[in-house]
């Protein structure tokens, strides 16, 4: 089936897969540093560079479509945009989001203007330049794929090599500085790697959507793990799979655009993570909340039973009834009486423990709803009970 897709589709799939891996890993550090939108500013700032590189090549007598030169132009203005954001946010009173907004729109506007000018340039075949906005894979050459592979591999290797200081700066820049990390340089390196991935990804995903490939995989990966390096590796995997699957899907039908399909596949991975992930996922959180709610209601119900107080909440009564602890008329069953007494004794034991600093760790770690015999040894419980009986002879 894969071979049936043809040579161009194969090239695109390999390129998109490699780009996805590099974008996922590099994007993780951008995401951890909470600079996702700087990536967007960098991406939009590539456009004037593309236009200028094209005009320069035409002026020198070429046809203006050499991808490598276009990408170099893109990198130059993207770097300029990045420095503008950095300068505005550190040297003026304007905040970083203002700087991002200003740089993004001004550079992009200038780029669009250049593209308009280029359409009126008589020489040079301008076909394809606007393809870099949303990616254009139809005419991808072997040399283009090699360029993407090499650029992506370099960005990936550098991201992994710098992962330790980048993680430290993202978590606590002040401490990282004291530990001998050059914070400014690491930040610029992070952004430089993002820039590299962006430029390399222009041909496949385009400058408008590349930020999605940088950000969606790490955000999705974050749902599954609490470890920065695993977020990076998982994000790389998700990015790579999205690239391959997205490129494959778009090749199955004639008019499906590659870049947007890749982004949609990545988004599907995000959606699955958001809903299904254990612990951090929406479903898990909902179940956890429901379970906790039941435990609280059951506990309160049992304590009320034990103290002979009436229970007004219907939900509590229903839970108790379902557990066979009260009858339909609200009177406790034998089992209910036993459980209520257990709950009362547990509550008294917890009170002793809360008053004793020696149990601080345990008390802080638990919600105070669990039966104590699941947490302490028989000896410890016996000791608490001695104190309990001593306090109320």
């Amino acid at each position, binding site marked *: 089936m894969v071979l049936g897709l043809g040579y161009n589709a194969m090239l695109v799939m390999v390129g998109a897969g490699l780009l996805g891996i590099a974008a996922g890993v590099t994007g993780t550090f951008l995401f951890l540093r909470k600079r996702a939108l700087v990536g967007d500013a960098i991406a939009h700032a590539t456009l004037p560079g593309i236009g200028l590189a094209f005009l320069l090549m035409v002026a020198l007598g070429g046809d203006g479509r050499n991808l490598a030169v276009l990408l170099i132009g893109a990198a130059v203005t993207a770097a300029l945009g990045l420095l503008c954001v950095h300068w505005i946010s550190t040297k003026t009173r304007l905040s970083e989001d203002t700087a991002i907004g200003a740089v993004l729109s001004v550079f992009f506007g200038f780029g669009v203007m250049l593209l308009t000018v280029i359409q009126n340039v008589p020489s040079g075949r301008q076909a394809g330049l606007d393809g870099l906005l949303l990616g254009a894979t139809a005419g991808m050459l072997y040399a283009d794929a090699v360029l993407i592979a090499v650029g992506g591999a370099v960005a990936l290797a550098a991201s992994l090599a710098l992962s*330790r200081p980048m993680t430290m700066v993202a*978590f606590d820049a002040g401490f990282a500085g*004291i530990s001998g990390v050059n914070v400014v340089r690491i930040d610029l390196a992070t952004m430089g790697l993002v820039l590299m991935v962006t430029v390399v990804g222009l041909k496949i995903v385009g400058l408008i959507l590349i930020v999605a490939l940088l950000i969606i995989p790490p955000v999705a990966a974050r749902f599954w793990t609490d470890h920065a390096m695993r977020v990076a590796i998982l994000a790389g995997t998700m990015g790579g799979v999205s690239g391959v699957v997205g490129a494959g899907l778009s090749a199955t039908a004639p008019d499906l655009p590659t870049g947007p399909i890749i982004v949609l596949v990545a988004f599907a991975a995000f959606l699955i993570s958001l809903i299904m992930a254990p612990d951090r996922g929406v479903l898990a959180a909902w179940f956890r909340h429901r379970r906790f709610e039941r435990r609280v209601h059951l506990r309160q119900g049992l304590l009320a039973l034990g103290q002979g107080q009436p229970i007004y909440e219907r939900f509590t009564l229903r839970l108790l009834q379902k557990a066979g602890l009260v009858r339909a008329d609200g009177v406790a069953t034998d089992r209910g009486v036993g459980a209520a007494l257990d709950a009362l004794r547990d509550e008294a034991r917890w009170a002793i423990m809360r008053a004793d600093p020696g149990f601080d760790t345990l008390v802080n770690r638990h919600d105070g709803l669990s039966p104590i015999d699941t947490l302490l040894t028989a000896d410890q419980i016996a000791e608490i009970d001695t104190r309990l009986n001593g306090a109320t002879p």
Partner: protein
Amino acid sequence: MAVTPLSVVPVVPASEDLAVYPLALRGLTVSYGQKPAIFSVDASFVPGQMTAIIGPNGAGKSTLLKAALGIITPLSGHVTVFGKALVDQRQRIAYVPQRASVDWDFPTRVIDVVLMGLYRELGLLGRIRRSHHDRAMACLTRVGMQDFATRQIGQLSGGQQQRVFLARALAQNADLYLLDEPFAGVDAATEKAIIAVLKDLRDAGRTIVAVHHDLATVAEYFDRALLLNVRRIAEGPVDQIVTPDLLERTYGGQLTMARMDPAQTAS
């Protein structure tokens, strides 16, 4: 005979040997805008002692610490660490920032945070070996957090977070410890645990400088105090510094003297 109407005595003798001080600030001014956060502060922190930096909100206590660490660039003045420039001496400083200064939902475990304290040894690519891991665990044990090593940091209480930060600073194995409000918002057990660790460090000859906000405990916890309100008010042994008169000068009207009531301090 010439009479000088105004005698100007230099506070710091020109020949003073700064090398004896783990941390010395001279004429340090930091400004965020047109108004100095700290102004021309001189301070010498005495080796092997615990010094509290005390002052009202907005006095520049954290700013002073950050400027001493090079996290903020001062407008003027200079900082020496064991008599040398800060950049050459960073490996001798450990730092405990304010707990609220980081995102506790960051994807990292307790042990990984402590291992960050070993960055100077590990470097960019150095492998984390068994011995590094053991040392990080030993630091966690010193603050009573050994059972939490593999927890995600977001699951910790405020006091536990503070202990992890202290463990990370212990891993740095420094001669000078700078702490920014280590007791802010922590439970009583944590406060006791932290002060015990700090006193151990001091008894081992290390120097401790901490921003402190609780006047009731300063005399009990610290050997010396620096009173700060943008300008340096006074510095010296804690019993000579934490006096109603000097506190009044530091806090102005913001301080109710009731807080200094010794009966209340004892309770």
